[in-house]
């Protein structure tokens, strides 16, 4: 765990830049909410969707997440990381651990900053269930973003293409919701926020969807390390 945290966050300047940008975004959102920019901002769910909806996920959070993971991912896809890990399975499990830790930290930051921004701007009662569900679901989305980046970097070797792959993953839900005649299912940010407050069954369904995607990505990375 100590190693994973060290690799992910120690002197990771891009991660610090991403964090500062996230706080700046939250500040702007809080200012907009306070000035009544949100017409339907009656409930906590609406305000939360304004701060962390699929559009924000697509155009702001996913690129910020990728900026934060670029350096640790570059290290994890190197042969020295694998060799120092002792064996290929160990290296791929460390990668899995890093993605989960990164997901937890990123999701906590995203949710807490959104909660604080809403609390500062509008006087609505926090919906603890929405917050908790969103936190848990965003752990999955952030971890999946990490795995997508690592897998693409491993397979293609180009940080630019890996970055674009993650951005496309982030954009998917935005496209699913906004492209006329799209009709494609959500697989990312679109599933993390529910305007009306998600039912427990619905959350389980979303988790299973993310779980399947995560397992597939882990298997891809596992077999990549095997090669």
């Amino acid at each position: 765990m100590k190693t994973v945290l060290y690799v992910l966050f120690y002197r990771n300047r891009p991660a610090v830049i991403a964090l500062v940008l996230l706080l700046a975004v939250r500040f702007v959102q809080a200012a907009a909410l306070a000035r009544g920019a949100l017409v339907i901002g009656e409930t906590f769910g609406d305000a939360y969707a304004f701060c962390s909806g699929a559009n924000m996920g697509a155009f702001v959070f996913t690129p910020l997440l990728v900026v934060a993971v670029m350096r640790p991912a570059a290290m994890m896809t190197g042969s020295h990381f694998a060799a120092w890990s002792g064996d290929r399975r160990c290296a791929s499990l460390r990668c899995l651990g890093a993605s989960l830790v990164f997901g937890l930290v990123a999701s906590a930051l995203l949710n807490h900053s959104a909660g604080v921004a809403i609390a500062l701007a509008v006087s609505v009662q926090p919906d603890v269930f929405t917050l908790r569900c969103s936190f848990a679901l965003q752990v999955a989305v952030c971890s999946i973003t990490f795995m997508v980046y690592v897998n693409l970097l491993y397979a293609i070797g180009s940080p630019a293409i890996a970055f674009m792959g993650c951005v496309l993953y982030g954009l998917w839900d935005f496209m699913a919701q906004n492209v006329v005649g799209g009709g494609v299912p959500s697989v990312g940010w679109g599933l993390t926020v529910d305007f009306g407050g998600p039912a427990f069954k619905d959350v389980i369904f979303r988790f299973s969807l993310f779980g399947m995607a995560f397992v597939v990505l882990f298997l891809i990375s596992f077999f990549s390390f095997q090669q």
Partner: protein
Amino acid sequence: MRGVTKRIHGKTVLDGVTVEFPRGEISGVRGHNGSGKTMLLRAVAGLIRIDEGEVRVLGRDVARGDTFPESMGFLIEPMKLWDDLTGFQNLRMLASIRGAVGQDEIENALRRVGLDPEDKRRVKSYSLGMHQRLCIAQAIMERPAIILLDEPTNALDDVGRCSMRGLLLEEKRRGATIVIVSHDAAELDAVADYRFEMSEGAIRKEW
């Protein structure tokens, strides 16, 4: 290595290579660019899956399983260094993965390659030669039984080359088995106990 063959996109890069690098000695492999030298080291290190043959390191087959050879340090391809960290911090991060190397050993390795462990400069301000020294320090810091070096004197000045020879001889006296790959025959002649030549993916012993 016995009958090791590796093909990449239909091209044979290692062609039935059979060779034994003697324990506790320095073996030098020379050859022109693209002759398969680096691929040979990658096969020994277990970094690639070979198509045919057998690679045994310290009695264990490394070509089939998931485990990399124990006690092995290598400099085969450019290390992914973190520019914002110092040389010491870079090595400490790698060492922290397995926890096998302590702070004293890292400092000692840095001193041996001519770098100052107390140097607060970040790696991004290092010269090419300092980069190379740091990578070599990474290869020796665990005091491994096997050391694989690909063009270790690249980017080193004359003083650096000279101290590198001394370092290799020290490692040999410690009992390490060292394989060096280089296109520079004179460089190999200065330190190697055995010399091999690679050409078109095949290897032969010169002396």
